[in-house]
């Protein structure tokens, strides 16, 4: 088990070196994708490795010549990494406009360290499931496919695309299985380990990740599920970035156990499969329009995040919600007050923690979490 965990940890500990090493060994191309909506399957079907861009652990320096400090963490971090040349091992990058800030990143990257391949997808958020948005999204995915074919020199057939979708669906179903196990057996894995398992899936080849996950699940089954005692909490939010590992440790050290989440480097990443059909691009398009887990960047008015959370917490019999808000993330910032009101009306305890890039004050967070812990049932 420890041996398996070590492998999950390798990529997230130093993604720059691990991915560059993988590239060196395989002689394959690496394509960085900006969170959260780009369909990796198309890139995989082109014989390349899609990696989800991440928040680095370094302080932002050169990046501030291009973006103000009040941009969100992923935005600042990717810009900083890119202009410093730390992402030069990426052969290509794919960006999108899911929020105003994400629209700015490709422009800065292009002007400073343009990758060999770059694409910008105008992926629409969900608007009433209208035909216009669906047709347009389908065309955007087709365009990505064509551009990748030109870049890689290989045709992306429907068969290849379906193979990739199958592989990715498998990864998602294994991750969901792990999450289901955690729901049933709180504490079977530390929060930091769960995070690194999901994060490594965003960085390493899915073929390898699937093998590792299968070994982990079978090991766990063999050894039995050791649970832990603590107040059950649900983690919500944290769009586009991974929260600090220390933060997850702190939650546990204070006697709380994360039983489920809807964070991006978590359930949000693997929630939805694409169907296997004879129109794989269509299947990816349909997946893009699935409305849950509710995504505040999607402009969707027919589903409600607060209500979704209430349903989840009740089903899990959890004691409360810890909201992780990526600082300066307008979609979440604008939605949050309504979630708070919904949860308060439903009598569900909740606490808000802002997750920044480097200036996270763990002491003040500890105080907030301590009082939250007392609120849901003192120690």
């Amino acid at each position, binding site marked *: 088990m420890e041996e398996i965990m070590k492998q999950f940890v390798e990529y997230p500990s130093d993604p720059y070196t691990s991915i560059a090493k993988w590239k060196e060994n395989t002689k394959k191309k690496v394509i960085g994708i900006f969170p959260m909506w780009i369909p990796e399957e198309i890139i995989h079907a082109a014989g390349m490795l899609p990696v989800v861009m991440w928040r680095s652990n370094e302080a932002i320096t050169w990046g501030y010549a291009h973006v103000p400090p009040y941009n969100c963490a992923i935005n600042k971090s990717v810009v900083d990494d890119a202009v410093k040349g730390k992402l030069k091992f990426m052969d290509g990058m794919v960006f999108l406009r899911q929020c105003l800030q994400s629209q700015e990143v490709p422009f800065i990257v292009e002007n400073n360290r343009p990758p060999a391949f770059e694409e910008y997808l105008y992926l629409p958020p969900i608007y009433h499931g209208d035909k216009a948005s669906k047709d347009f999204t389908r065309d955007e995915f087709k365009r990505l496919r064509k551009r990748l074919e030109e870049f890689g020199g290989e045709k992306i057939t429907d068969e290849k695309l379906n193979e990739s979708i199958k592989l990715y669906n498998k990864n998602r179903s294994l991750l969901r299985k792990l999450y289901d196990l955690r729901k049933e057996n709180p504490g079977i894995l530390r929060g930091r380990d769960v995070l690194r398992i999901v994060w490594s899936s965003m960085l390493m080849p899915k073929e390898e990740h699937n093998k590792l996950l299968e070994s982990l699940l079978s090991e766990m089954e063999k050894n039995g599920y050791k649970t832990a005692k603590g107040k059950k909490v649900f983690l919500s939010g944290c769009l586009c970035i991974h929260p600090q590992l220390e933060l997850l440790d702190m939650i546990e050290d204070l006697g709380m156990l994360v039983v489920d989440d809807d964070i991006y480097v978590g359930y949000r990443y693997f929630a939805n499969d694409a169907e296997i059909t004879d129109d794989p691009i269509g299947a990816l398009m349909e997946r893009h329009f699935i409305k849950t887990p509710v995504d505040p960047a999607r402009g969707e008015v027919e589903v409600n995040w607060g209500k979704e959370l209430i349903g989840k917490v009740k089903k899990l019999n959890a004691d409360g919600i810890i909201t992780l808000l990526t600082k300066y993330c*307008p979609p979440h910032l*604008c939605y949050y007050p309504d979630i708070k009101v919904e949860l308060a009306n439903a009598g569900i305890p909740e606490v808000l923690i802002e997750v920044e890039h480097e200036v996270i004050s763990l002491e003040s967070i500890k105080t907030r979490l301590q009082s939250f812990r007392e609120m849901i049932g003192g120690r």
Partner: protein
Amino acid sequence: MNTQYKINKLDTSGVGPLVDRHWRELREAKEKGMKIAWCAGPMFVYAYATPNIASHFMAGYAAYCGGRGMADEVLEAAERYGELRDTCSYHRLHTGMAAMIMNDWPVSNPQVLLPMPDLLIGGRFCTEMSHYMEAIHRRFGIKAVTIEIPSARSREDLPRLEKFLTDQVKETLIPAIEEVSGSKFDEENMRSILRPWKETCIIRNKCWEFFKLKPSPWTLWDYGVSIAPVFYAMGKPESLEYYNNLLKQLEERTEKNIPAVHPDGEKYRLYWDGWLPWSFLGKFIRMMIPYGAIPIAGRYPWEFFPHPEDINTEADDIIHEWIRLIYTSPNTLSYHDGPWGGQEHIEDLIQTYSIDGMLFFSSNSKYRKKIRHTRDCH
């Protein structure tokens, strides 16, 4: 000896009554049996062109509140509701106002409480524009139509983005307007608004020509204050009258050699990037004037349809014609407003208006145009 520079503002006082009238009509609309639409982004025009709908341009509310000394009170109401400070101030002003109505909170000047809308139109030009619509929808259950308006990365992308926006508008927005207004969307009515509006924009462009003069007879601030008539009184005679008056003043000044900066004109002509800080225009100009510097051009004030000659007010598909202005027309708002076209647009403004220096204004609570157009300097 150091020159003592002084600003000589143009007379823009005609804007006040025109804007006041807009707000008064909006407040009285319900009594007249009209429906109300709150609109953010350029899709407002379809509601505006619907006779029994009164439109509220959400971007103007900040200036309206500020003008009545109520911005702080409304923002405080937003925070009392739970809004977080890092959201855009336009978002908080509207949700703050809604919170005051919803909770019946006391308000020092009830004029800032607008009638609640029957329809919310969020043109997602800036993504935040849909967020405040969604928030109000969640809180009041008001019908919200949010339309994606992507900024273009390249000119090649413009035609397909134009089609995408046109399809969305026809498929989603127009039926919603028809449902709320109870009548079929009247394309001829839209034409009848665009005709005089085009005429107004042509006069307004003549005014812009005076920015090319050295010394300049007016500043970007004078023009900024004068933006309102093209929106608040779109297609109305008073709007044309306002710009004719402005043009007359500029002609007179030029004839008599009266510059915007005393005694002998500006020393530095500045480009201003970002939105105009309505509440701080005076503060900023007072900072610049001692150096003989004045703002002359900026991307934001040039956003609003600088090529009126290109508008075909008789177009068969007038719904599409408006969207063409945003995408494939020479105005190409969606390209110029995004980062890529922005750079091109800025370069053009610098040349055209002989700019000496640039100021990039961005603030935490107004998200658009935050990036600096920097190239690699490492």
